């Protein structure tokens, strides 16, 4: 009777509209099933056995990606309670820790961020030590460096969001560096070069630092700006570059094994 039920389901229109092809029965059909599916095609059909050798690959790239997913999921969950205003930011963070059920996800997000930075550096080190940056992989190395910078920027923007003493002063010091940008920072070399009829174009209220922190000092404008960068802008850029990074690895024959 169970077989009749199964047959009825599999022949139904609902089922056939979702699963257009039956279970693959040979290798060609298996390959086609992977390639033809939007979710499955993200994985390679086959993986070289040498790609599983963790003593060689360290699996740090995979770990970094896994942590990116952890950060995304915990981050989205935190967004349901955290409000990026000077009145609420710190207290919402404390409430997540003390009051919200499974609020340990705030801690997971923080530790995951530290772990991801470590994983990314170790991945970079491993790629360097195994020579996996040499042709034809030079471009992917550069994509990886940009991803490293984006990871560090995610850490930088996220650091401000708890809005505690550590956050405010760390970002004050960090963003003060932008004052000294050549041409675009109001205390940097060449700032007075950009003038319009005697009026300074680059001053404390219009230089690169001003655009970064949306104000002359760290304040509410900075908080919301860093929040949007941290939750939307940089993750989107990182997701796109991760896709490019993975595609390049696949195109060059999968994770590099021994020569």
């Amino acid at each position, binding site marked *: 009777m169970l077989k009749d039920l199964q047959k009825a389901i599999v022949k139904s229109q609902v089922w056939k509209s979702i699963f257009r092809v039956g279970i693959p029965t040979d290798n060609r059909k298996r390959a086609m099933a992977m390639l033809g599916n939007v979710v499955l095609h993200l994985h390679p059909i086959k993986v070289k056995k040498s790609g599983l050798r963790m003593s060689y690959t360290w699996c740090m790239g995979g770990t970094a990606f896994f942590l990116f997913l952890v950060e995304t999921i915990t981050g989205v969950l935190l967004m349901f309670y955290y409000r990026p205003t000077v009145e609420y930011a710190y207290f919402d963070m404390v409430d997540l820790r003390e009051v919200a059920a499974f609020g340990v996800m705030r801690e997971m997000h923080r530790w995951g961020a530290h772990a991801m930075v470590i994983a990314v550096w170790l991945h970079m080190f491993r790629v360097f030590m195994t020579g996996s940056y040499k042709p034809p992989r030079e471009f992917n190395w550069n994509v990886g460096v940009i991803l490293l910078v984006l990871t560090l920027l995610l850490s930088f923007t996220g650091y401000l969001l708890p809005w505690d003493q550590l956050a405010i*002063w760390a970002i*004050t*010091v960090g963003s*003060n560096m932008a004052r000294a940008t050549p041409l675009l920072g109001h205390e940097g070399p060449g700032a007075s070069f950009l003038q319009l009829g005697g009026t300074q174009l680059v001053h*404390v*209220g*219009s230089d690169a630092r*001003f*655009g970064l922190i*949306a*104000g*002359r*000092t760290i*304040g*509410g*404008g900075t908080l919301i700006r860093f929040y949007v960068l941290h939750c939307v802008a940089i993750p989107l850029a990182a997701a796109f570059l991760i896709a490019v990074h993975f595609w390049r690895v696949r195109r060059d024959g999968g994770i590099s094994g021994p020569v």
Partner: protein
Amino acid sequence: MSDEPEQESTAGETPPARAEAAATQASGTKPSDDVTRRGFFSWAAVAWVGFTAAVGGCVSAWGRFMFPNVLYEPPTTFKVGKPADFAPGVVDTRFVEDNGVWIVNEEGRLYALIAICTHLGCPPNWLEAQNKFKCPCHGSGYYKNGINFEGPTPRPLERAAIAIDPSDGQVVVDKARKFLWEQGQWEDPAAYIEVA
């Protein structure tokens, strides 16, 4: 371009032969055709230029968007009372919390020290008992007049523009104008008020 009567070329309009061939290929005309003034700018080139201009315009607009016009910060210009309110030799800390300046009356001059450590930007504290400003972050120390003498700070505290408002005789401080000792600006008349 609309129909133009064929004229003798003016202002060096005649393109060299190689560009002529390239232009005809770009505009899709037969290689044997001459490049006319109409065909020089193919519609595709105009379209691309237009597209680039539109994208460039949008990116510029988004860039300008990112610089706020309105700030929710305390005003940089504020009044702090009459000159007589500040006794000689005293560092007034009443305006540090809300406005970020100390008003100091010393050696016949009234001046405003900006309460930002010149090392990395923390607000120092005035230690009355030890007669010095001390930064809690990395230990930078300054004398009452703002000169640095200990810790990692490379230069003295900055002074703000200070003047007397003629309408009511009150002292007005403008933090937007800063005076740096290492550039000799403390002698600028706008950096202090002469008091008895």
